[in-house]
Structure formats: C-alpha cells, structure tokens
C-alpha cells in the first residue's frame, strides 16, 4: 500500500530496487529488499548490525553482485550488470567506512585522479592539470577545509580530515548519487557537525544515501530514513515516523 503511493509521488526517481536478493552461501544478506530514492534526497538507512545495509551499498556500487532482482539507476541503468568502474562512470560515487584514500599521494593528487574525466589509460597518460582543474580542486579543498594541506601527503592527515578528503574524492566525480558508509565514525563532535553540514550541501545537487548508526546524527540531518532488518525492508519515513513504528521498536529494543 505504502509503496504504491510513494511511486506516484516521485517523478524523478534516481534509484529503484525490486525484490533484491543477495545470498552468501546459505545466508541471505539481503532478502527481497525493495527501495526507492528520489533526486536531491538525503536518505539515511539504519538498522541493527547485520541488517544488510553495507551489503546493499555494495550492490549499488558493483562490489557485490545480486543473486536475483536488480537495481535500476535513473530508471534505465541496471547496476547489477556493470563492473565497478562502469558504475562510477555512470554517476554513482561511494565512500567506504574505513577511510580509503591513497596515503602516499598528496591531497592534491588524490583529488586530481578522482576528478571527473575520461579515465581510459590513453587519456590519463597524456593528461595535464589545467588551470580549470586546479580551480575546481581548490574549490573542493575549500569546501572540505583542507586548502592549506593541498601538498601534504594524504597519509599524514588526521582521521577526520581523511574522511573529508574521501568525501571530496567522491564529489570530484560529480556523481548523481553518493553513497556514504558511516561517514562520522570516529569523529569528534565538532567534526560530526561539520560533516553533517557538508552532507546537506552535497544533497543540494544530488541524491545521497547514508548508512549510519548514530541516531542523534540521523535525527538532525535526515530527510528520510529507511529501516532495514535481516535483509528486508522494515519501514521508512521521517525520523519521527520511524521512531513511532512498533516494529522498529521491537527490532531495536527487543520488545514484543
């Protein structure tokens, strides 16, 4: 019932999954999960450990192939059938849970190779950093507050700075859909706040899916929340709505 309603509302659906199943051996990490995402939406996915949140992101970015079902990006692109790099080139960017930047390259170089560009080797071999590119990178550095550190080796940045750098690397690709896996893990309160603001800025131009555990953070910044449980869809809505949901309380608090 609910689902049908939603479909009507969203004229610009960015992402849509129907009855997605991912199986590891005997375990169904994702079981008939259906999901929908509108453009410019800051969408949080929450759920207890093992709910399948990260696996869902893995499917979206091509790291894991679905066992059955598929995910449609921009209504026509079947993500389940593409390689990782092809998915990226279609406009899906992902930030991983542990900061995975390139420690031995400078901050600048990290962004340089992340930049939206033709990424075939022939083009890359001859590529030069143009003034426009530099300006673009500097804008991004300003956004994440690392302007001063542009020549520093990325491996020497502080933890929070690495997280931002990775977000910046995702943004440099100018994606239409950004996937973030626990972006504030290990951050100080101040950094969390900054990250939240950053997410809002990002979501102005594109759809964002965030997997997060920190409920205060979710409450503060989420447009919409989807709750997953044991690989299935449990409910969605605003944070307030979700918090009222009987089944969510059951799952989180073990109430029956």
């Amino acid at each position: 019932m609910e689902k049908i309603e939603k479909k009507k509302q969203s004229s610009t659906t960015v992402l849509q999954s129907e009855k997605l199943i991912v199986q590891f051996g005997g375990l169904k990490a994702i079981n008939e999960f259906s999901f929908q995402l509108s453009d410019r939406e800051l969408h949080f996915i929450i759920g207890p450990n093992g709910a399948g949140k990260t696996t869902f992101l893995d499917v979206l970015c091509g790291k894991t192939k679905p066992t059955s079902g598929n995910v449609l990006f921009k209504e026509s692109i079947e993500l389940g059938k593409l390689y990782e790099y092809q998915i990226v080139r279609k406009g899906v960017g992902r930030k991983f849970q542990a900061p995975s930047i390139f420690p031995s390259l400078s901050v600048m170089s990290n962004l340089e190779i992340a930049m939206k560009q033709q990424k075939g080797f022939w083009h890359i071999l001859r590529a030069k950093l143009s003034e426009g590119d530099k300006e673009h990178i500097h804008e991004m550095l300003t956004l994440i507050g690392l302007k001063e550190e542009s020549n520093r080796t990325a491996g020497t940045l502080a933890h929070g700075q690495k997280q931002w750098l990775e977000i910046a690397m995702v943004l440099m690709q100018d994606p239409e859909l950004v996937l973030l896996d626990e972006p504030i893990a290990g951050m100080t309160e101040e950094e969390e706040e900054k990250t939240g603001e950053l997410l809002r800025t990002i979501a102005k131009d594109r759809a964002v899916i965030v997997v997060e555990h920190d409920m205060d953070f979710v409450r503060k910044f989420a447009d919409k929340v989807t709750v997953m449980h044991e690989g299935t869809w449990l409910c969605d809505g605003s944070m307030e709505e979700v918090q009222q949901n009987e089944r969510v309380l059951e799952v989180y608090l073990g109430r029956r």
Partner: protein
Amino acid sequence: MSYLYSKKTLVILGFVILLIMPFVLAPFNLNLLGRFLAYAILALGIGVLWGYAGILSLGHGIFFGFGAYAMAMYLTLQSGGMPDFMGWNGITELPWFWAIFSNPIVAIVLAIAVPMLFAGILGFFTFRNRITGVYFTILTQALVIVVTTLIISQQQYTGGTNGITGFDTIFGYSLNSVTTQQMIYWTTVIFLGLVFLICYKLVNSRFGKVLIAIRDGENRTRFLGYNTSIYQVIVYSFSAGVAGLAGMLFVLQVGIITPSMMGIVPSIEMVLWVAIGGRGTLIGPVIGALLTNGASTWFSQTYPDAWLFFIGLVFVLVVVFMPKGIMGIISTIQARRRAKKYGKDRKEEAKLYNSSSI
C-alpha cells in the same frame, strides 16, 4: 625548487660519467659495466612495475630471455647461417620462426614486441580475473617453469640447456673487438638514459599517480571509475618490453644466452636488485642493479666460498630493516639533516614532504 634543478643536474652528470667511461676503463671492465647497465635497464622496468604499480613479478627472467634469444638468433643467423645444434639434432631446414629473425629490424622489433604481447595477453586474463598480489607473484613463477622447461625440451629449435652462443659478428664487425664493444656500451648507456626518461615521464604523469593509487588501494581506484586491470596490463606489458630490450643489449655484451639465465633464481635476484636500490624510485633500481652486481663480482672474486653468506645476509637485512633500500636510507639521512637545520618541530614536516619522484 632549486634542489629539483640540481637533482636533474646530478642525474645528467651521472649519465655523462657513464658516457665517458670507455675512455677511462679497460675493455674488460667496460664490458662488465656494460652488462650491469643492461641489468639496470631491466631493473628500471621491474622498478616501475613493482615500486609504482605494486605488482611483483618473479618471472621477468623470461622476458629478459625472450629479448636475449631474439638477438642471439639474429646474430647466429648472420654470423654463420643455421646454428650447429640443429644439424646434429636432425633439423635440415631452418624453421620459419628462426628465419624471420634473419632480418635485424624484425629481430629488434620482436625482441621487444614478443615480451610485450606475451605479458599483455597473460596479464589481460590474469588481472581481469583479479589475480593480484601474492597470487600473481606465484603465478609468474609457474610461468617461468613452463617457459624454461619448454625451451630446454625443444633442444632441436632452441639449443636446449646450452642455449645459443658462438656468434661473433654484428653487421659485419667483430663482436669482440674493442671498438664494437665500445659502440655497444654507448648504445646501452643511451638506451638506459632513454628508458629512464620514459619511466620518469610515465611515473610523473597522471598515469603514474593512478598506478600508485592502484598499488595503495586497487579496489578504491576501481571505485573512482578506473578500469584498474587495463592499467595493470599496460604497465606489466611495458615492463616486459623493457626487459626484452635489456636482454637484447645483454646478449650483445655477453655472447651467450641459456635457459638457466631466465630461471626462478635469476628472476628473484632481479627483484632483489630493485629492493636493495629502493623501490618506489627510479634511481634506486639503477643503483641497486649496478651495486649488487658490482659487489657480487668483487666479493666472489675475493671470497669465492663466502659470498653467498654475505649476499644472503644483505638480502635479508635490506628487505627486513630497510624496505626502501639505499634510496630510503638517503632520504632518511636527508630528513634528519633538514630537521637539524630547521629545528625539531620541523622534523615531522620534513618526513611529510619527502615524496621524491625520481
């Protein structure tokens, strides 16, 4: 910025020193240096592959061997027609895959192209199937066994364990005359310079940065939209081509190539030159190849019974305690000096900025 200038100057200075060596060294020593320089070219290829792209191949001996065999086949054909071993192995007509090597240009092109193609095809399947790291390394060892066993068992076409030797002229000049050897030496130096330059351009381009990215996080690079396996194939193939070139120059100065020079142990030793010199740099492999071979020549002359102890110990110590090799020590000393000069608080910073790209 000023040191960048002087860094280049010093590389050029080193290059010039190498160029004038024929006027300084006796022919025998020149020949020795020449073959070390051929090794240095090989080491450069391995250095780019391993130091920058993080791919450890323990099978570069076969690419080196391909190049060497190609040149040796050409030299044999133009020195005296059909090789002796075919005669007493009952082969009366030159097989086609020998005949094409009678043209020097074809031989030189194939010496580089065959390794590149071979590495390209193998790499295409291997990297596409995401075989990297340790698995790739072990796979290259299997490859060495396949190729060397084949060469040995096809004695009638390859000369078997004796390899190919006994050629003594090139373009009508005696291969062993002092002038010819000098020419070959200079050719080697010039090719070393050229390969160095190409590698330098390569690793300092965006391509080089992508290679480092693949080394440090292959999956992450893929999620930036790069088809990493193509990059790996390209750099593997490039490195194989460089090895082929080195093999070609090597055989000109040594006059023999046998399957035992392409085996597992030589292939590991090639990598160790790079480790000793310093991976992740370009000067490191060159210095490593020259120093290790120079030292092993000197040591085994002086202490023939004990030099294995020594070289084994050096390998262990370098890999365990100096993972960046000689170049690593140099930059540590340098960082320390800089720290002394600018005070303690800059010490950390000094470490941060030592991203040397040569």
